[in-house]
């Protein structure tokens, strides 16, 4: 491999010793319920019988299976099933041994791939979100101070969401507010603004991990056939989500609000911003509430987690993408324990300077989440 742009390209992985000294902030760690019964202690008794008699109702065709069967059971690495028998991510000690300790992780930002937000029975959705937060607090963040939870909220019910956010206000165990990204309306729409107002007032970023089901086709051209398509299409939908937050004026109304787009890649960001700027110039009369070019909101208000780190045909193209994106925008993430997780040693196939490493692997996240 020949360096083409004056930067040294790593033909092999950087030496583990140099990276091992660096403390990392991992912005996408998946813990999991050992069993759906784990939430019952935090739910009123009416829900115990309700769940037994009726179950959950989400806008998907199957009771338990994913509409697009994943590439591995529980979406996870085969070696991530804990020895005690629970699903991947459900055992704190095993997660510490497999992720937090060996990779020298200073903080791990938890994203539970379950929410009450896309539950069709709204009261059940609200109760589920509250229970998830109680469970996260008791069993995860209180047991390992490296772990920071996201306040899981029933975003389709904004008043209930605001109450849930305020229930955890000031608790340092919760570092952000998590919304399902496939919401019923694009998340920039006004109905969600009370959520942003509450989050901005408390200085909590909005964490937007690709997730959820809203009944809309997974592409604007209808339903695709394969998981290989769907996996990429959920990332495309995050592009539409970023466009929505910017164009609907969320960051104009809440200039201090931070949005973190999780597990959707980042190399797409520059081209989306260029395109928006070009067409905003011709259509700005339609969106007079925007006082800056769309790209400026991207640069001010949105951050992106790294996994799955894109692998261009030439590694140095990734450096070009980061130069276009802005080095302060990228937050390292492993996505442990999922099958496509990135290890810090191998995620980026080009060599970063020490300063760039500190930014991407820790300092950008520390600033966004206000971590000590």
């Amino acid at each position, binding site marked *: 491999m020949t360096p083409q742009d004056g930067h040294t390209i790593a033909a092999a992985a950087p030496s583990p010793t140099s990276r091992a000294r660096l403390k990392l902030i991992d912005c996408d760690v998946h813990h999991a319920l050992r069993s759906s019964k784990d939430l019952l202690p935090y739910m009123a008794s009416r829900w115990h019988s309700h769940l037994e008699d009726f179950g959950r109702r989400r806008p998907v065709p199957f009771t338990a299976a994913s509409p697009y069967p994943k*590439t591995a059971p529980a979406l996870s690495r085969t070696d991530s099933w804990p020895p005690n028998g629970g699903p991947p991510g459900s055992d704190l000690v095993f997660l510490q041994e497999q992720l937090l300790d060996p990779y020298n992780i200073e903080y791990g930002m938890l994203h539970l791939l379950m929410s009450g937000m896309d539950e069709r029975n709204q009261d059940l959705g609200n109760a589920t979100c509250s229970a998830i937060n109680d469970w996260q607090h008791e069993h995860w963040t209180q047991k390992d101070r490296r772990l920071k939870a996201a306040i899981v909220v029933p975003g389709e019910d904004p008043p209930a969401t605001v109450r849930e956010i305020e229930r955890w206000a000031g608790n340092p165990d919760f570092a952000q507010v998590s919304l399902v*990204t*496939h*919401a019923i*309306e*694009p*998340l*920039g*729409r006004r109905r969600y603004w009370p959520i942003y107002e509450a989050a901005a007032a408390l200085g909590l970023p909005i964490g937007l991990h690709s997730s959820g089901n*809203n009944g*809309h*086709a997974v*592409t*604007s*051209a*209808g339903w*695709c*056939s*394969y*998981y*290989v*398509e769907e*996996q*990429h*299409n959920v*990332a*495309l*939908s995050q*592009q*539409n*989500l970023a*466009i*929505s937050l910017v*164009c*609907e004026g969320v960051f104009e109304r809440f200039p201090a609000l931070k949005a973190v787009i999780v597990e959707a*890649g980042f*190399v*797409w960001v520059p*081209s*989306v911003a*260029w*395109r*928006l700027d*070009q*067409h*905003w110039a*011709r*259509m700005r009369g*339609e*969106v007079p509430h925007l006082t800056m070019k769309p790209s400026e909101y991207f640069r001010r208000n949105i951050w992106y987690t790294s996994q*799955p780190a*894109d*692998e*261009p*045909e030439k590694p140095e*193209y990734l450096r*070009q993408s980061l130069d*276009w994106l802005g080095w302060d925008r990228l937050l390292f993430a492993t996505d442990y324990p999922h*099958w*496509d997780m990135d290890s810090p040693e191998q995620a980026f196939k080009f060599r970063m300077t020490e300063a760039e490493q500190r930014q991407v692997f820790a300092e950008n996240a520390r600033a966004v989440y206000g971590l000590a």
Partner: protein
Amino acid sequence: MNTALPGGIDCDVHPALPGMSALMPYLDPYWQEQVTVRGIDGLDLASFPPQMEANGRRDWRESGAKPGTSLERLQRDALDGFGSRLAICNPLYGVLAIYNEHFAAALARAINDWITAEWLDREPRLRASITVAAQNAELAVDEIERRAGDARYVQVLLLAQDEAPLGNRRYWPIYAAAERHGLSIGVHAGSTFRHATTSNGWPSYHLEDYAAHAQAFQSNLLSLVHEGAFHKFPALKFVLIESGFTWLPAFMWRANKTWRGVRAEVPWVDRPPGDLIRDHVRFTLQPTDSPPTGADMERLLEQIGRDDMLLFSTDYPHWQFDGQNVWPAGFSDALKRRVLLDNPRNAYPRLKEALQ
């Protein structure tokens, strides 16, 4: 001025139907009566409202007229204005969005008759896309067969946001007919509104819908790759029209990586998606959605990695650039020459034959 390189093929101009009355001579008596008695008119696609300046550049507009309705203006502004030797007409009337497929097929046939009589027969520099009722592949194939004998029709026109992603097998009879007749498949921006314009639901603003065409094109490319359409129709070229192209490198990297991880699901896809796209897909020039500088564009073109993928277009009468500034910064003269002539000829078998 940067029209220093004339003689190109403009791969996207939009003749517009003034209204249903213009189609009356081309409809059979049944549909003439239906259209009249029921007062059916105004089927312009909501994706392209004619009154928006973006859909009719101010200096290309006649006061009171829908932009694109005048042949004389198209001749003067687009053909003479850019010295093009040929231009491909892409009528965007809302045939593909009609729910009654019989009506859609009748309108498709009428639109093509209208294009033939009032545009192609009056201006030898014009070529056209075949309007079809893709709602029903059988009806669409009938229309393709009807036009195939006229060499001035060079492709079949579809929309990027339709009922199903375009790799879906419901479209394959259309692709088979196109391949058989040396026609390409043109996929133009626009929605039939069978689904929300984003997978997150309906945005508030046209700006968002317009930006979202890029994601729709990407979803369609994934579909064409993974359903195996490029393998099934190896000679067929897909031309993405008014799609933008600066998203292409980032899209291909992600598509390649995802395929490497999940390829067991689609064993017929035996090459990285980016390689298939480079071989089978072409993009019109406008809108360019340019990066900030010419140097950035040069880097991006290097990432695209091929100089045969872009086809010259003005998108007339849509407003994508001012004056004659159709070329984005960062295009060398050698690349411009390829984009103007060589690439369109190679994307359209029927143009290659005509220009030999």
